[in-house]
Structures are given as C-alpha cells and as structure tokens.
C-alpha cells in the first residue's frame, strides 16, 4: 500500500522526497488528472453526489454537494463540502471538510471528517467520485468505534429520535449557506 502511494518519480529517493513532496511534483499532471476526474464525474452523473472546481484558475480547490441517502436520518437533506487537493495528488489524499454544519459521529463541529480512506488508507486508485460515494455511505453507516462527536455517537446508538432532533437543530439549508 505504501509503495502504491509513492510518486513514481520519488521511488528511489523516497527519504529525501518526504520532506518536500508537494513542491517537487509538477502541477501540470495534477491539473490533468483533476480535469479527467471532473469529466468522469460529469459524465457518470451519479444521483446525489456532485462536485466542481471553485474557480477556473485553480483546479485544486473544489466544492461538492452530497444528498443524504434514503432510509437514513439525512434523507432529503443536502450537505456542502470543500475539497482541497494537494500538489502531489493523487499520491496524497485531498483534504475534505463539511462546510455545512454537520451532526455525525465521525464529523466534528468544524466539519473535519474522520474517515480511514482519507487518512492512512488513502490510495492513488481512489478518485473524487469514490470519495463522494464513501462520504455518502458514511452518513448512513457511521463508524462509532472512533467517534469525533461522542454525543452524536451515543445518540445514534441509543436514541435515534434524539439524534434526528440534534441533526435538524444543526442543519442549514444550502441556500442559507450561500447567502452568508
């Protein structure tokens, strides 16, 4: 797994590269990769998930939209996320954060997410679409073993009605979010 995540150019001098990996990789290939990922995302048109670059000049900053999956407390709600891709993407995971206030065992109050594939289990074979799908499924299946939001985890396990209440108390519609 480790070797898979190393930039091929950095292969035989991985020790040196570790200190300054971001600047050493040229930005062009990142742009190209992101462009093709965007195209793939646009063409596959999976319902409920979507993402797009924030500006046409910087492809490394995206914003995404995730619709709550059916049959979960999040059904009918829409959440906004921000995605920041490092210069050596896809060899490093993108930084992903919920912009909408989120009530979820694995998401803290500032929107930071605890998801293994975004941390130690990141692999270069993942892409924007898989990340979005993972996040969407995370909403319905939280990992309560290592919660960031202990209260939410507790509610999820013991009192679903209370969970939904807290959830709605925190929820902000995308429209309102955009107005702020």
């Amino acid at each position: 797994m480790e070797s898979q995540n190393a930039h091929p150019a950095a292969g035989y001098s991985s020790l040196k590269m570790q200190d300054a990996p971001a600047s050493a990789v040229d930005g062009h290939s990142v742009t190209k990769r992101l462009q093709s990922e965007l195209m793939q995302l646009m063409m596959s048109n999976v319902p409920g998930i979507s993402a797009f670059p924030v500006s046409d000049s910087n492809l490394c900053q995206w914003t995404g939209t995730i619709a709550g999956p059916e049959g979960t407390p999040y059904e009918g709600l829409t959440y906004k996320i921000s995605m920041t891709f490092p210069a050596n993407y896809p060899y490093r995971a993108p930084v992903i954060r919920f912009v909408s206030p989120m009530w979820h065992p694995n998401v803290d109050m500032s929107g930071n997410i605890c998801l293994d594939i975004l941390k130690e289990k990141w692999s270069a074979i993942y892409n924007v679409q898989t990340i979005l799908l993972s996040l969407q499924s995370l909403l319905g299946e939280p990992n309560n073993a290592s919660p960031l939001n202990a209260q939410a985890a507790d509610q999820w396990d013991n009192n679903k009605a209370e969970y939904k209440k807290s959830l709605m108390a925190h929820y902000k519609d995308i429209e309102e979010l955009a107005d702020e």
Partner: protein
Amino acid sequence: MDRMPTKVGSLYNAVFLAPEVRADARVMRGNADTSAYASADWELVTAWMTPKALLHPPPDYLNVSVQRLENLGLTSKLLDWYIDAVRSHFVMHALPAVKGHFSDPTLPFNLQKSTGAVQGILTLLCDALNHYMHPLMHLFHDNLVAQARFRHSFNAMIDIALSEYEFQICSLMLVDNVLSESGKKRSTDEDSAEEEDDDAMMEDKETQRHEFLVAFRTRVETLGVQDLIERTVAKVYHFFIQRYIHENYANRVEREEDEPPALTELRELIYGPIARTVQALVREDEAVCERMFELATECLARLRIGEMFNIVIGFPDSIPGLEDLKSCIKTQEHRTQLVSSFQASCQQRLLHCGVNTTDIILFYISTIKVFRLLDPRGVLLDKVSRPIRRYLRERDDTVKCIVNGLLEVDDPNTGDLSELGKELANVSGHKGDADDDNYADMNWVPDPVDAAPDFRNQRSTDFVGEFLSLYENKEVFVKEIVTVIANRLLELKNYEIDREIMHLELIKLRFGEADLHNCDVMIKDISESKRVDANIHDQAILAPGIEPVNRVFHATMLSRLFWPAFKNEELVLPPEITEQMERYAAKFSTLKSGRKLSWLTKLGSVDVTLELEDRTLRFSVSPDRASMIYLFQSSSKSLKIPVCGGGWTDYLTRQRVLFIIGTLTISEMMQRLRLDEATTRRAALFWVKNGVLKEEGDSYVLLEKAQESTQKELTIRFLVLMDETAQSSVQTAEEKATEEMRVYWSYIVGMLTNLNSLPIDRIQSFLKMLIPKELGYSRSIDELRDFLAVMIAEERLELAAGAYRLRK
C-alpha cells in the same frame, strides 16, 4: 423710358430726311459766338451719329465740329449721349429681331432650326456691333478710351440679348451636336472604311464643319462672349462625356483582345476629335484637355465602381473592366465609395437565404482574386470581405462546403468547389503566415490610412488561407476533414490510398501535423488491412480446420479509437456473407492472436449482379441495399456465390437466382433486415429508381421484366429523396455538435449544483478551462447564451440578476 424712343425717333426722322441740307446751313452760319456754335456743332454731330439704316462716311466739316466740341470738353457728354441713343436703338430694333428667332415653338426640339437661330442671332449681333461702331471708328478713331467705354456698355446689351432662355437651350444643342459629331466620328469611320466616296464625303463634311466652327468662333470673338460659350461648352461636355461613357462602356466589362483599354480609348478621343472641336469653339489650351480627361476618368470610375459586383461575378472574363477601374481609382473617396457600393450590392444580391452556400463561396473566391488585383495591399479586400465572412460564419453548411471543396469531394448537394482543392494543391502559392515583424524587410511600408484598426496584413496567403481564417480556430475544419477522409477511406475498394495520402499531405501543410494525427492512423489502418487481407487470402498460410475465405470477400481493419464515431446500427446480412465473415474472422484471429474482429455490418460496398428474366444488371451498392435485394431471391434455388469487394465488410453477392419471392412489404423488410423505416425506404427507393423493384401500396414487387413507365412516374419522388447520397456512415458534424452540447450541459449542471448561481462569462470560462482538449470546447459566448436560453425555455434553468441557476 417712355419719352426716350419718341425723342430718338424724331431726331432720327429729322436727320434722315435732309442731313446734307442741314449741315450746309450750319456751315454757312460761320463764325457766330462760341455757345451758338457749340449748340450747332452738337446738333450736327449727334444728327450724324444717330443710328440709322445706311452708313455714310462723315462729311469733312463734321470733323471740325467734333474738334470744336472736344475743345469745349464735351466729348464725354457726346459719348454718353451716343451710348444712350444706341441703347434705345438696340432695344427698339435689335432685341425684337433676336426674339424673332425664337418665335418658332418647335425650336428647342429641332437641331437645324436651333443652329440656325444661334447663327442668326450671332450674325445679327455682329452686324449691330459693326453698325454702332461705325460712327465711333470715324470720329473717335484715336480715342481708345472712348471705344472701350462704348464696348463696355454694348457688352451689357449683348448679355441681355443672349441671356434669353431659348438662346441658352439652342446653344447647348448646337454645342452638344458638335461634340457628339466628333465623338461619333470614330465609329462611322470604321463602318464606311470600304467606300471611298463616303470617305470623300466625310472629309467634305469635316471641312464644312470646321469652317462652320471657325465662323462661329470668329463671331463669338467679335462679340467678346467667349466666357458665355465656354460655360456652355463646359456644361455640355459634362453631360456629353457621361452619356458617351454610359453608352459605350456600361455593362461592357469584357473586351476583345485587340481592343485598347477604355481609358486609352477615351484619351485618344478627348485629345483627338474632341480637343479639336473644343479648341475650335473656345480656345487652344492644353489644360482644358487635361481637365476634360480627368472628368472622363472620374466618370468611368463611377461607372465601374457601380459595376463592381458584376465584375466579380464575371471574373476572369471581366478583367478588362477591372483594369479600367484600377487605372481610374485615384482618390480616397473612390475607395470608400467602392467599398460601400460593393457591400450594398452584396447585401442585396448575395447575402440572403436564397443563395447557395456554394455560390457564396465561389463569389468570395472571385472577390478575393479581383480585389487582390485591384489592391495588392489587401485593405479593400479586408473591408469588403467582412460582411461576406460574417455571413458565411452564420451558415451551417459552410464548413462542409469548404472541406468538400478542399478534398475535391463530388457531392451534388454542395456543388463544384474543386477550385479550392486546386488552389490547395498549388503549394507554391502558400508561403506561411505573413511575418510582419521582419525588421530586415527593406520594402516594408505602413498600412494604408484607410486600413481598419484590426487590419491583418495577409499578402502572402492565398485564398484558401482566407477561408481557413473564417473561424477563430481551425478545429471545425479538422473535424469535418477527418469525417470526410474517414468516409472516403471506407468507400475504397482496392485499398488504394495514394489519392488520400496526397490530399492529407496537402491538408497537413495548412493545418499542421498534430491535429491530423488520427488521419495518419486511419490511412495506416487501410494499408495494414491490405497486408492482412492478402495474408488471409493466402492459401499457403491456411489455418487448419478453417475453410478458405472466398477471394472476393475483403475486409478493412480499423483502429476504433482513431476513427470518428460510427453510427451503431444493426443490419442482418445474407447467411452466405455471414459465413464468409465468420471464416474471415477466424483466420484473422489465427494471424493476430488475441485479437478479434467486431464487424460493422453497415459499412462498405457490395458489387451486385442481378440476373433477371430479360436483363442482367450490375450495381455497386451499400450493404443495406444489397441485403434488401437479396431478400427477393429464393434461397432454395439460388447459387450462392459471394463475390468481390473492398472496405470494411465488403462482399459481393452474385445472385444467379430465380426470384420467387416477388413481393415484400416495408415492415417485412424492416423486420428481416433489422433496419429502421427511413433507411429501409431509402434502400427500397434506390431499387425502384433503378427499375428493379416496383412500389405497390406499401409493398414492393420485383420486376422480372423491365417496365418503361416506372422511370417517369417516380422522377418527382426522387427529387425529394435526392439527399440519399449525402448519407454518411460516420457521425456528421451536426450530430456531433448535439452530442457535445449534451456533455457541456452536464458540466453546467455540475457547476451550478455546487456553485449555486453563475454569470454567463464565468460559465464560459469554466467550460473553456475544464473540458478536456480531446473533446474540445469551441463555442462562442453567444452560442452558449443561445443554448442556455433553450434550457431556460425547457424550464431547467432560470436567469436572475444576470446569473444562471438551476430550477428546483
């Protein structure tokens, strides 16, 4: 004024009755006192001077009287009196006589009478002048001041006499006639060249005319009215030359080889007969000719400027007319006028929906050539071509027409534009883009003052370049070119790619290697196919267990990724063919292990021989048509021999058949061929057109015996269906555009979902930046706006405060 004539009249009578007697009486009175003498002298002199019918030399004593009056300082008074007397006399007698010439009401319409009147009046006035000058010449012979004073007031009288409206008309006619005569001379000379008598007569006439002119001029000079005549001549000349040029040069832009240019002809005319005439009439002056020639040039320039549109249409036969124009155009004003008049004609006659795109392109080619000749700097061309280019960009089929022209495609829908292809082949004409930054160019001159701010200097590019610069990028052409080349390669029967290679090389010179990389692969596919096909047919490398493929069955192997998208349509082929295909595919797999053929059954061509009861027909048709006619063959009695071909799924069915199934309906055929209705009908109509099938209601019947009538009945229907040849097996640019827009739409949905609402320029720049180059986004912001407007109409978008957002 009333009083005057009577007074003069009485004096006149008194003197006229007995001048001699009275004079004697005065002399006899002798030396009386001075005042008495003065009064007597006055009476004596005035009596003699009073204008009268007969002119006498003055008696001797009169000189004495004049001398005495002069001594008394009365000369000036005497002259005043005389001028007064002459004026009265002129009004009484000369003026009515002048007017008498105009009493004939038909005068202004009759040349002879008009000439007579003018001559008569001039003679009359000359006589009057002589008459009135007579006393002065005798009594004041040395007194030039007195004579000048008299002439001065007499000139005023002449002016009054000649200012009559009728006189002006008559003199205009006279001069006009004289000029026309001299202008006509050339042609009459030619006509009567053979007859010497005529020549002599002409010469005689010429002499007469000259004499007449000299006489005329003498009178004019005597009267001192040259100015008046000059004005008339100028006026007449102006109309004359306009008329002359319109009569002789209007709509005559072509010329015989030995004919001199119009301007040379005009110069000869003006400096020759016209100059002689005018000089005879007015005065000898080189500057006059110069001025007259300038006027003629101007007139010719205006004429040709108005005819520019026809010159372009008539090119290259109209080159002489163009040369006229080129030598006439001198001023900035002419150039401006040329541009605006040409643009107006284009707008009116060319740039509307009634004109074929092909015709517009041909016209544009001519325009380029014509204006290049006229103005090698290209400034005029730049200006006049803008509206044409703008219009061409609006047309859907412009690209198709141009590419067909470049590749010399023979397509009845686009007409013949092979000129483009020829020009393309003319490699030497193309020297690459003009390099304006060449500082070593010693012949560099700045752009002319009337060049537009964004005028591009394009001297060294030929007209193909003009077309290729029609759109902002060349990609639109590249796409079309790839489509056309793909189609043509698919139509090949013998893997003969030389012609395509040649075209491709020429195209590459313009478009560069990179964009046409796919074409290289396509061509390589064909040559590779030739080799593979030969191997498959080679009995020596016969694979065990596989029957040999019939020698007439050939296939082309395509690298799918490098060819344009194919229409994925199904077609059921005859079993004999399918069998050959399976064998072919099996052999291919043995030759190229690990690779498998996937057939595109609708592409290719089939040579079919139909043996009917009374005739044998041969066709080279598309697989769907061949399969259709195969349906009419009785499977049990046919000798199935697939025969020759080339291309993708090429095969030939030799139908040695007794056609038993005589009738099939459209739906039956559709079902058995698995084709859609449109294609089926088109294929059926092809056979109907060729007299093989006959339409009966919704069914088609095979005609074992030829029927004459079928042709005529169906002519009209074929006109409607003529577009069948335009059917392309490769996705057309239009279909591609629709598909592209679908892609763009998903991007737009993506960005609006995540970014809420965006103004149009942000959307445009997103699309430009984010859509990968392979797909290419080349729409203008206006096209995007149109597209978004459609989406708004479909209630998928809404526009608020200049920003678009998705409708919930």
